[in-house]
């Protein structure tokens, strides 16, 4: 029952993100747009490159979806509404998101095409840049909550959300989250202008529909993670808990979609350079500052 509600909520979120994405990119808000797009995509033929790695090619889009779903499973929508309340929930989010990279690597390598392969390639480089910026901010969050359980992380923010308590971690995690979802300016693996779709380029029809759905679910999941770790999840006055969770998640998703429009795509070398030379020292500083604050303020 909980799982069913969570998946429905996730799909509803993915749909709303699709509406938002359409609005952001086309300038027109269309409530039924994604529905039509999805149905039309299912109606199109789905052909595959002749020479390809069959298994990887077919597995990659579902794997992307599964990794996003698994990460979402440990994120609470409201106090009782969580699929798996793991003792290591916060760590599990990161473990599941690591398979996003595996999926993209497979999607890039399998079709035997240069664009796709470079796309898959690039995402691995991107992972090297962002993965520490997922783990380290989560560490600081777990320090404050004194737990890796996601529901306890939310409850630890009753007095003050982590976004204010540890703003450095918040910004780093948000940026790393955008990199996980390969949203602009971190859309190196798909890069429409440079790689003509990159890892997505060889997928058509229903396979493409699965890929796109997986990406939307991923965006919702990461936005939900930001909301749980930094914005106090379901906490908030007047409205019911689920409404707060939904509102915060969607707001974060909208922010993630909008931010990339005003800057050019980053260079691979810059993503790595800034991730390691700026991001990681800042993340360490964040852990240190949070540690001091916990000791001094409590």
């Amino acid at each position, binding site marked *: 029952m909980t799982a069913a509600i969570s998946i429905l909520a996730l799909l509803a979120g993915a749909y709303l993100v699709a509406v938002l994405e*359409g609005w952001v*990119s*086309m300038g027109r808000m269309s409530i*039924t*747009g994604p*529905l*039509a*797009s*999805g*149905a*039309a995509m*299912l*109606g*199109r*033929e*789905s*052909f*595959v*490159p*002749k*020479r390809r790695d*069959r298994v990887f090619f077919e597995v990659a889009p579902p794997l992307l979806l599964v990794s996003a779903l698994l990460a979402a499973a440990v994120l609470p929508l409201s106090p009782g509404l969580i699929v798996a309340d793991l003792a290591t929930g916060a760590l599990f989010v990161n473990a599941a998101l690591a398979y996003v990279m595996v999926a993209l690597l497979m999607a890039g390598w399998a*079709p*035997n*095409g*240069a*664009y*796709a*392969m*470079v796309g898959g*390639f*690039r995402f691995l480089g991107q992972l090297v840049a962002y993965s520490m910026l997922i783990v380290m901010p989560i560490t600081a969050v777990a320090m404050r909550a004194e737990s890796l359980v996601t529901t306890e992380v939310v409850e630890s923010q009753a007095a003050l959300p982590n976004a204010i308590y540890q703003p450095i971690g918040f910004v780093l995690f948000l940026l790393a989250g955008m990199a996980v979802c390969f949203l*602009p*300016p971190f*859309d*190196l693996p798909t*890069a*429409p*202008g*440079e790689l*003509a*779709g990159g890892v*997505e*380029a*060889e997928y*058509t*029809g*229903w396979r*493409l529909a699965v890929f796109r759905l997986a990406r939307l679910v991923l965006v919702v999941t990461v936005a939900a993670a930001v909301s749980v770790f930094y914005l106090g999840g379901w906490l908030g006055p007047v409205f019911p808990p689920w409404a707060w969770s939904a509102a915060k998640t969607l707001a974060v998703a909208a922010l993630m979609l909008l931010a*990339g*429009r*005003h*800057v*050019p*795509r*980053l*260079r*691979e*070398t*810059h993503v790595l350079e800034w991730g390691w030379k700026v991001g990681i020292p800042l993340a360490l500083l964040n852990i240190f500052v949070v540690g001091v604050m916990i000791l001094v303020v409590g």
Partner: protein
Amino acid sequence: MTEAARNSRSPGRLRHRLRRLVSDAMERDTLRAFVVPGPDVARALGLDLEAAGMEISATPRHASMLVLVGETPESLRRSAAVAYSQIPRPRIAISVGAKNPSPFPEPDFSIPLEQKALERATAEARKRLAGKVLNPHKEEKHAGEERAEDSDGGHASREEPDEGDAIHEDLEDEKARAGKDSDEGHTSHKEPKEHAGKSEEHAEKAETESSDGGRANHKDPEKHVEHESMNHAEMGHDHMDHGDMGFMSMVAMTEGTPRSSDGLQMEWVAAPFGPLFPGLPGGLALTLTLDGDTVAESVVSSAVGMPRFEGMSGSAETFAGWLASLDPFSPVAYRALALRAFEDAAGIAPDERTTLARIGAMERERAASHLGWLAGFGYLTGHARLAERAGKLQLALLRAGGSGESDRLRASGASEISRLKIEVDKLVENLRRNPLLTRRLKGVGEIPGDAEASGSVARARGASADARADDEGYRSLGFEAVVRGGGDALSRMRVRLAEVSHSLDLILAAGSISVPSDSFDYGLSGKGSATVETPRGKASLRLSLRGRGVSGLELHTPSTRHIELVESVAKERELADALVGVASLDISPWEVLH
């Protein structure tokens, strides 16, 4: 699962209902269009595809419609046919303002080159797409498409029907397995015969790859085979059987492959980026050999270039119009060039009003061309907002100030130009304050100091090379060449941004925009030459005029020079940087002389 597969198992009514549903969805769905030769050409011709309700697709695989814009040479139409075969069915093709689309498959319908017609076409295209869902059997293979697929070998077979067609699937499977088996017989790899087969197969692979992004394979296939087989002949043995080696060694395995600048040896892959690549000017056929994600080699040519002028002759009356029609990015400049050469040959000078009106028209074209470049550049670099703004401004500018009929800028036209100038300045200011853009472009696309360049490429690195500086008319309007000191993409962008603004000032100062007309006395004769600063640099023309005929033609265009720079800009650069470098040269493949 495709609809067809699902339906074959269900009763007729359900099938019909599902078809209805999908057909309705198709009619409502955003039209994703793959544009040939490219969205940049469409914009330069004054078409606003987004306003007509289309979304530009980066690859034909994600599109449902192919839009063929304007007159294109046959080779490009052949590429277009390949791209069309990569659009998943149901699909639709329309031609906008093209007289003869062959060998491109018969378009579903043709429309004239007008924004209004385009807007009507969108609705029509949706209806036809929906119709094709309802009557799938009516959609047959186009004759032209088949021809194109035949000539391109792998393409037809790349499109295998999905699970809906189990027989094909199995056949394909068998073939794949057979290929694999022969590969897995490791001992046989030692035999040279096997190697020959291997390298051929590899070349074939590279060729199929070429079709991947929907770009026709414009690389010389023979050269390719040679390249690949060379690799394999050398590396073959160590590469394949490491049974004797004890442990898999990367050094041994990559022995004999070309060595990159960092000393690591890796396998190289050739990938086409054009002539229909979305991030580069439509018609520019660029093939990059990738060493990892670094460009090891580049081969560039134009799929749409100008013909050889030497030895050509023709009617003088139609010459200016013909020359102007060759380059969709700067027709006005080429028309002006032809007329100036005529005037020089005849020894007459145009009156001041005509001069000023021409300047107005040429400066409008320059500003629009630079904005168009900026829009394409924004798309390439993933700067969505920039692509959108610059594209809109370009289209607005092309429409501003009226057409050639009215000589003086009407008050509304002048105020429109002033309004656009404010918007342009705002955009320029935004870009200047964008540190990420600066970091992205700085040091990218550096050209060697002794390289021959003209136009904004030359002015960006400090040379005040501008044909306008010698022009009396321009000097009277207070023209000043924009010069920056740097040979990279950033300074080229800055020069162009400043020039857009300056060009708009010049239009306002000239007070009129009039595309040069052909009202000229062609009875005169003599030899003449002229030089004009096109949006891309200095173009010069020599001709002799005799008895209403023109002969002794000699043309120099800036892009012919700049296309030579591509290699130095791309070499040993990361792929994205190489593409940014190439795009920053603002090459118009249409004016490249073969």
